[in-house]
């Protein structure tokens, strides 16, 4: 006897009547319990807005695959790092893999922000999901860490200046920032340690937290749509989570296809080999809003900008404890979020139009 989609029991005779793929699945399920993935998901979740987390995970998967391939050719020694990336031009699918890695990283950053905004907009961080929300915010921080370390790994002028700023900020933090300074292992290039962080520590932590995130989603269920009143939720259609994965996978195919086209047509450049003592570049666009703050208030503004943003994100579920989830009924949170997004966009535009300045 085996267990079916919604926990119903099937006899072995019933299984034998079905085709061999079903029998194979049943055999695998009996041993690995994959049927646990078929937990019920409400109808409203099978839409693009509610699949942004899955699309973020898919971008991460593309990054893992392309990253493993790129790691075969990347040399994390300062003398050779920049040159080894240029050498990808002579490797089968080397330029395409790096380009897809680059564009998938941009996509993951955008998708994780859209996912976070969707969660805030629908109040999905509210009880009992506060813990899972904080896991998600931590993953957002790790995505930024992956973007930063990836920028440094290019070991061009832009990457080196990003590193120099990070070291200065780490020194402002004293003991808390010690790991980010070269003093941890003076004889070892910091590039090697950041490479370790980029390929092992950061993705490893993301994977661990992703598993926790997914398990907590299963535990609490996908959050209710605030526009559907409680009386109607019981009548809302339910589908197995595997069906939800199928639709998210369809969206994912579109995303991967679009990223591949962009990767073929717009491969990213690699900047000049770095030289210490000059500041002639701006950071990559996800960090530009901090750069504008630095231009106005000096280096500590990078630190304070990040602390304020993540402080607000972490405090959100503790500050907004009302059960109301419809956005019109939460003017403070929605206005504050809109203000924060507008400020970050405005600062980014300001940074784009200003010329690079020396800060260190």
């Amino acid at each position: 006897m085996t267990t079916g989609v919604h926990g119903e029991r099937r006899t072995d005779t019933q299984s034998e009547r079905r085709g061999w793929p079903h029998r194979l699945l049943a055999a695998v399920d009996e041993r690995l319990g994959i049927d646990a993935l078929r937990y019920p998901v409400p109808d409203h979740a099978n839409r693009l807005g509610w699949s942004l987390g899955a699309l973020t995970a898919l971008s991460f998967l593309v990054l893992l695959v392309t990253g493993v391939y790129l790691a075969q050719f990347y040399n994390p020694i300062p003398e050779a790092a920049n040159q080894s990336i240029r050498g990808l031009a002579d490797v089968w699918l080397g330029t395409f893999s790096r380009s897809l890695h680059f564009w998938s990283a941009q996509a993951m950053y955008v998708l994780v922000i859209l996912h976070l905004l969707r969660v805030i907009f629908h109040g999905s961080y509210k009880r009992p999901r506060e813990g899972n929300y904080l896991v998600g915010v931590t993953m957002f921080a790790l995505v930024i860490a992956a973007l930063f370390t990836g920028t440094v790994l290019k070991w061009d002028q832009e990457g080196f200046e990003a590193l120099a700023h990070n070291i200065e900020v780490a020194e402002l933090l004293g003991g808390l920032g010690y790991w980010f300074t070269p003093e941890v292992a003076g004889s070892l290039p910091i590039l090697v340690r950041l490479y370790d962080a980029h390929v092992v520590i950061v993705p490893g932590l993301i994977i661990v937290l992703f598993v926790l995130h997914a398990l907590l989603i299963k535990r609490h269920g996908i959050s209710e749509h605030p526009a559907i009143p409680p009386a109607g939720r019981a009548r809302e259609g339910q589908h197995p989570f595997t069906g939800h994965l199928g639709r998210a996978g369809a969206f994912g195919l579109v995303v991967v296809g679009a990223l591949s086209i962009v990767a073929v047509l717009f491969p990213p450049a690699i900047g000049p080999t770095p030289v210490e003592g000059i500041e002639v570049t701006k950071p990559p666009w996800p960090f530009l809003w901090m750069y504008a703050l630095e231009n106005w208030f000096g280096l500590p503004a990078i630190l304070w900008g990040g602390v304020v943003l993540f402080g607000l994100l972490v405090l959100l579920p503790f500050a907004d404890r009302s059960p109301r989830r419809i956005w019109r009924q939460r003017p403070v949170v929605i206005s504050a979020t809109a203000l924060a997004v507008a400020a970050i966009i405005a600062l980014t535009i300001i940074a784009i139009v200003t010329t690079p300045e020396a800060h260190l």
Partner: protein
Amino acid sequence: MRAISRMLIAGAAAAFLTLASAVSAVAHGEDEVPARDLVLQAIALIVNQPDDVHEIEEHVERALDAEEHEGVDVELVEEAAAALEDGELAEARESLQTAIGAGPAAGIGVPEEIGESSGEPGQPVFAAGAETGTTVVLDEYEPDSAVGGGEVALLALSAAAILGGVALAWWLRPSVTMRQLRRSATAPGETR
């Protein structure tokens, strides 16, 4: 009383000397950058900010005025300064690169080293900590984005993935729209 005043004078003198030496160190801090580093910075400025000729010239002048010229051919730096005055950036760059013992380099070509190692004799030195390890400033590299046979295949596969994804998303679409869901949720009876 006299002993106390002597101690105060000695203390004040020591404090003044300490302060004076600190101020002097700060004032001369820029001059302490070795000429080799300044030449490398000048090359990087030519590569990254070729329009900022004033900044490039300043670095070359500082390299010439530096106290430490180890590993730098000063004559070639002077040639570079003259080339800069004539507006010959490429010539200046070549002179500066040769002045610190590295051959001209551009694009992805591996530079040919013609100078001595920066390490101790017989002891190769690799970059450590936050050192750049840069001996030659390479130009920005733009990968070839021309569409050849391989790229056409990749584009075709990508387009197929998009079309397949759109078709699959349509096929797997929910049977009811959000509007219907909201409406049916408030209406009496079963949704489906």
